[in-house]
């Protein structure tokens, strides 16, 4: 589906592309480059909106053939049930193959230790890296966007990682034109970010245009939450709330979906895509600023996690 574009002087340029068509075309090009040049690509799929968008774009890129990739979910064990349900339905619907790397299994086996603050986001790096090594994935699609965070603003579309998944900003290859260099040594892999150039608003507008189904927690609903570090967190088995934290029922929705212990909900009445888009267009807070405790830790929190192999 494409949109007719009216240029500012009012005439219709028959060869103009809308910004959503441009971004879609670029992302599809990236998926096809990876399919053409790599042997074992995998899509990181959490059931969050960015990974849902990636899957939708991949399905379009290879239609009417099935996508030539499998999916990998790094499961923190602190999942929203609605999101796990969505994940499983999607895998079933498209006949996909899903790998799961479980943080809980690593904790149970004593290979990872629970953090004092209860958050498991930073614990995902080891299971992710070991899954990449074990399955010999050579290209790993992530839904990271450059508008999310300032370290991500410097990220390449093809981001080379060593055998420990480490990111070295000084070793990143210049990316010119649309020529992506995916060469890597045995044991290394490339993280690929096909939606690098999308903003949060683009993602939502495209979801609306394409009629993509999302997990219901992205829309306003009544939920039992408590306040921590200025965010509304969901009470649950992961350990919250602590004694002094008061649980109350509020009308909220999620702007991002991650580990329950550090992903905050925002107050919202937006029950439809249209209402969500209006709300985002008017929001004065960034997506991660409003909803992610782990990025508030320091000025370079994301850069440090990325260097260690995070998404």
């Amino acid at each position: 589906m494409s949109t007719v574009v009216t240029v500012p002087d009012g005439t219709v340029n028959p060869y103009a592309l809308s910004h959503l068509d441009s971004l879609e075309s670029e992302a599809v090009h990236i998926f096809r480059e990876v399919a053409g040049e790599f042997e074992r690509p995998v899509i990181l799929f959490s059931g969050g909106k960015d990974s849902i968008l990636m899957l939708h774009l991949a399905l379009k890129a290879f239609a009417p053939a099935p996508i030539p990739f499998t999916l990998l979910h790094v499961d923190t064990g602190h999942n929203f049930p609605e999101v796990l349900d969505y994940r499983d339905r999607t895998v079933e619907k498209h006949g996909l193959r899903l790998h799961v790397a479980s943080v809980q299994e690593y904790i149970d086996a004593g290979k990872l230790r629970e953090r004092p603050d209860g958050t498991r986001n930073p614990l995902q790096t080891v299971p992710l890296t070991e899954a990449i090594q074990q399955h010999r994935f050579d290209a790993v699609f992530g839904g990271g966007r450059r508008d999310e965070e300032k370290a991500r603003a410097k990220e390449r579309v093809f981001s080379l990682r060593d055998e420990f998944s480490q990111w070295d900003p000084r070793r990143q290859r210049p990316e010119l034109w649309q020529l992506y260099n995916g060469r890597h040594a045995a044991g290394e892999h490339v993280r690929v970010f096909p939606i690098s150039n999308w903003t949060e608003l683009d993602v939502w507008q495209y979801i609306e245009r394409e009629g993509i189904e999302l997990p219901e927690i992205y829309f306003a609903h009544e939920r039992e939450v408590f306040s921590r570090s200025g965010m509304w967190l969901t009470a649950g088995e992961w350990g919250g709330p602590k004694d002094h934290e008061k649980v109350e029922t509020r009308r909220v929705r999620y702007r991002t979906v991650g580990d329950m212990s550090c992903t905050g909900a925002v107050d919202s009445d937006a029950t439809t895509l249209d209402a969500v888009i209006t709300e985002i267009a008017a929001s004065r807070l960034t997506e991660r600023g409003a909803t992610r405790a782990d990025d508030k830790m320091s000025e370079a929190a994301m850069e440090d996690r990325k260097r260690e192999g995070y998404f």
Partner: protein
Amino acid sequence: MNTTTEQLSATTLLRFATAGSVDDGKSTLVGRLLHDSKSVLTDQLEAVALASSNRGQEAPDLALLTDGLRAEREQGITIDVAYRYFATPRRRFILADTPGHVQYTRNMVTGASTAELAVVLVDARNGVVEQTRRHAAVAALLRVPHVVLAVNKMDLVDYAEPVFAAIAEEFTAYAASLGVPEITAIPISALAGDNVVEPSAHMDWYGGPTVLEHLETVPVSHDLTECHARFPVQYVIRPQTAEHPDYRGYAGQIAAGVFRVGERVSVLPSGRTTTIEGIDALGESVDVAWAPQSVTIRLADDIDVSRGDLIAPADDAPAVTQDVEATVCHVADQPLTVGQRVLLKHTTRTVKAIVKDIPSRLTLDDLSQHPAPGTLVANDIGRVVVRTAEPLALDAYADSRRTGSFLLIDPADGTTLTAGMAGASFAAEADADAAASADDAEWDF
């Protein structure tokens, strides 16, 4: 933002680059564009204010918005290309914010490679300096279609028209001599906000657009019917399912021009001809498709086509060659030398190649050239002659940025060594000023 979803989704996308240093007020300009278009959000401003005060600065330093890496913040400089995103009701923008100093030429080249427009900043007090000429040369080499000269700090020269006019005239003459097709000069004060987003109250003599107005209205797609149509094949789609037993489509992104169903096409490098039977544009069948759409093309005849091939109109196909002459920017820390064995990546095709000659190196500041340098090191611009192991369907970069560009890659460790642009360096014929500093016709001015 009071626009409806419908209006927002019907906007076009402009990719543009800024080159300059903190001294020119580049960060202030970028900060103001983002801030005044309400693209910097409260939590980002708070983070910048906190980080600035931690460093003992009085006012929030908007450069901290874009200098995302620890090393950049510690050294107070922009090292890498930072991509910034903002939107107005009329257009979506992707800004490649690049550092201006000569040791970061490769980053400037990277940012300019995908830009439709480049903003070159000068300080009104200093006028056109060495760095300005280098930025104009990068824009000209990379064939950026539109260049904006932002004459900044007009408040420090009493908003005087003659100051602006003299700088604009000097720059326009220089850039035009390099073949920059369109130059727009705008007098601004990024600090005071004159002519960035809002028109200036201090420069009645200026009747042109503000920087943002110009960014919003500059045409993003040139006349595609004038371009040579080019389609590099990325991937062959063959479902071989019960539903689609015989489907065979060639997936790719149209690199240039327009393709139509029923058109006679050649497949290169084999040179076989056939007809376009159908075009699938991500879920819908269409009769016509154009750059930069990602589509799948079906051909009437069952001929051998694979990744790396190029589909082009039968009567307008590029020549196929194994000898490449090009202007390059060396982007790696390790040098490029004559006799070096490399990989050459052109569109979707990667072939073995050898560097036969490096006839010259060019200094972008004054366009002086240095014959037979033997090697190129990081940030050098030079001419190279490369012989490839297999034929390439290569256009002149001047005719087609996407099918005239290539990378040289180190086969041992995969490092991207060099960015290449096939054919002549600059578009324009020699003009007196430019020719004076160039020794001979090697550079094809």
